[in-house]
């Protein structure tokens, strides 16, 4: 599983002024990930701090797996933000997936801000033990 070279900055229409033709750039963060492969599956973990289950999207498009997470809004009443090291409220990353996966056998969980995908391999791709008979 390798990463698709899409360091995109998605563009959304400027909404502050009705006559503004310039698209407004929305900053995107690339989540840190870990990918582990075993005989049966690929296990992908992605850090998405601040994202809840309603803000995460996992989609397959041809041979590409897209991850997207939108940080849940936090604006406490009566407070003003005075400092932030967070560069964006949206996470995105894409991966080229191998041909040996079973797209119908993908399990996704989101725990403590970490999205975990278990992507099973197609049965044909799993190793098969061949019994050797005595001659």
């Amino acid at each position, binding site marked *: 599983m390798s990463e698709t070279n899409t360091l995109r900055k998605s563009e959304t229409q400027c909404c502050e002024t009705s006559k503004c033709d310039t698209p407004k750039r929305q900053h995107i963060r690339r989540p840190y990930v870990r990918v*582990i492969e075993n*005989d049966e599956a690929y296990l992908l973990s992605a850090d998405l*701090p601040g994202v809840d289950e309603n803000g995460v999207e996992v989609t397959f498009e041809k041979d590409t797996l897209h991850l997207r997470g939108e940080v849940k809004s936090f604006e*406490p009443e009566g407070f*003003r933000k*005075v400092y932030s*090291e*967070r560069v964006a409220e949206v996470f995105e990353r894409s991966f080229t997936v191998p041909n040996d996966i079973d797209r119908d056998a993908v399990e996704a969980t989101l725990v*403590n801000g970490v999205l975990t995908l278990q992507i099973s391999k197609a049965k044909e791709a799993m190793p098969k033990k061949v019994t050797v008979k005595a001659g």
Partner: protein
Amino acid sequence: MKNRVSHLFEPFKAFQLLQQEIDRQFSEFAVDHSARQHSPVEVWRNEEGAILRIELPGVDLNDIDVSVNGSHVHVNANRNLPDVGENENSRLNELIAGEQGRVVEMPFEVDAEKIDASYLNGVLTISVSKSSNELPQKVVVKAG
């Protein structure tokens, strides 16, 4: 074509390039880990105190420590990641296990008795209040 010809005479060069391509596929996007030694912080303020938000994805609630010393708020956390098994291959690993933390200095002395911390979706939220020493105190003006 030139490269192809040269590979014929440099079989190991071709192998090197192949290895580089494999490395690129799986390692190109590894980050500079030294730049990740701290967890991003966000600070919100009002007259009475502040709210700190610190990203700590993948950390168990029991592995987070929050303490206060004067105007400093200390956060320490420990992230555990499962080891790669004998029958597993690590294809890409940008996640870091171990201790991480931040110290945030507030522009006021923090009331150690009035701290509230919660952990949700991998983000630690800490509410701190100004110490009573910091709050404006009314002085009764006596008639001369």
